[in-house]
């Protein structure tokens, strides 16, 4: 048996079965909702945020092919950003898909987010537990690879 320890508890009660948390991206003067999505291979952020993130050309980042749940495919571009979540600051690589409309939901996915934070859910009582483990983190340096579901 392996025992996992967590530093913090986070109650949530938003009336749905989706766990949404507020995040701040870079120094934007506001918070935006983001879904904790273990089914997303990458962290995805809404294009609407781009104008204020000092990203002049979203296509300048490494490209990755992505597929959404209904099978629709697209190309996303990775950019290194800092986010604040759970009162923690993290540097992550986030994907932007310029072909998707503004207002697309922000997703905190496996790459960039869940590989940095240890999270456990007890959805029956609407609680999650999290900590940042003190260990080297796995990080693939190349953007190339198989098609990633978002």
């Amino acid at each position, binding site marked *: 048996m392996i025992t996992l320890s967590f*530093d913090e508890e986070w109650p949530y009660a*938003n009336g749905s079965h989706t766990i949404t948390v507020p995040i701040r991206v870079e120094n934007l003067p*506001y918070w935006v909702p983001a879904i904790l*999505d273990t089914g997303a291979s990458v962290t995805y952020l809404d294009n609407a*945020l781009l104008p204020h993130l000092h990203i002049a050309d979203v296509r300048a980042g490494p490209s990755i092919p992505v597929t959404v749940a209904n099978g629709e495919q697209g190309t996303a571009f990775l950019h*290194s950003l800092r986010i604040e979540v759970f009162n923690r600051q993290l540097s992550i*690589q986030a994907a932007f898909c310029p072909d998707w409309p503004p207002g697309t939901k922000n997703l905190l996915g496996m790459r960039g987010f869940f590989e940095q934070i240890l999270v456990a859910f007890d959805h029956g009582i609407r609680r999650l537990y999290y900590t940042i483990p003190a260990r*080297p983190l796995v*990080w693939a340096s190349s953007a190339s690879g198989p098609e990633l579901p978002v």
Partner: protein
Amino acid sequence: MNCTAAALLTPQSVSSRPLTVSPPHVVNGDVIYGGATDTHPWKRRPQPAAGVQELRWFHENLAQLAGYENRWVALLGQQIVAYGGSIEEVHGELHRRGIYDALVVLVPADVERREYFIG
């Protein structure tokens, strides 16, 4: 708070496949990867619960946002402090008024619809 959970995992259940590991650079508890290129100072604000109350209110009172469908709104507490047709408009208004901890959300086209997310 120290919470503990147990998982029925064994070392044998973990893949032994070699992985690419880049040790992160840690500054003040923050993990900084080599790929992060933006080095301008992070302006941390001591509001650990910022956005939480607003997000809960948004999910539990969406119907009260009738009239704001398809608009971006900035919530602070239980109040709309700015709104607009684009997030840029809301950003500008928040900046002009010096409000830094609002939650900005896009109100869906149907505020009565209970939505289940599949993604």
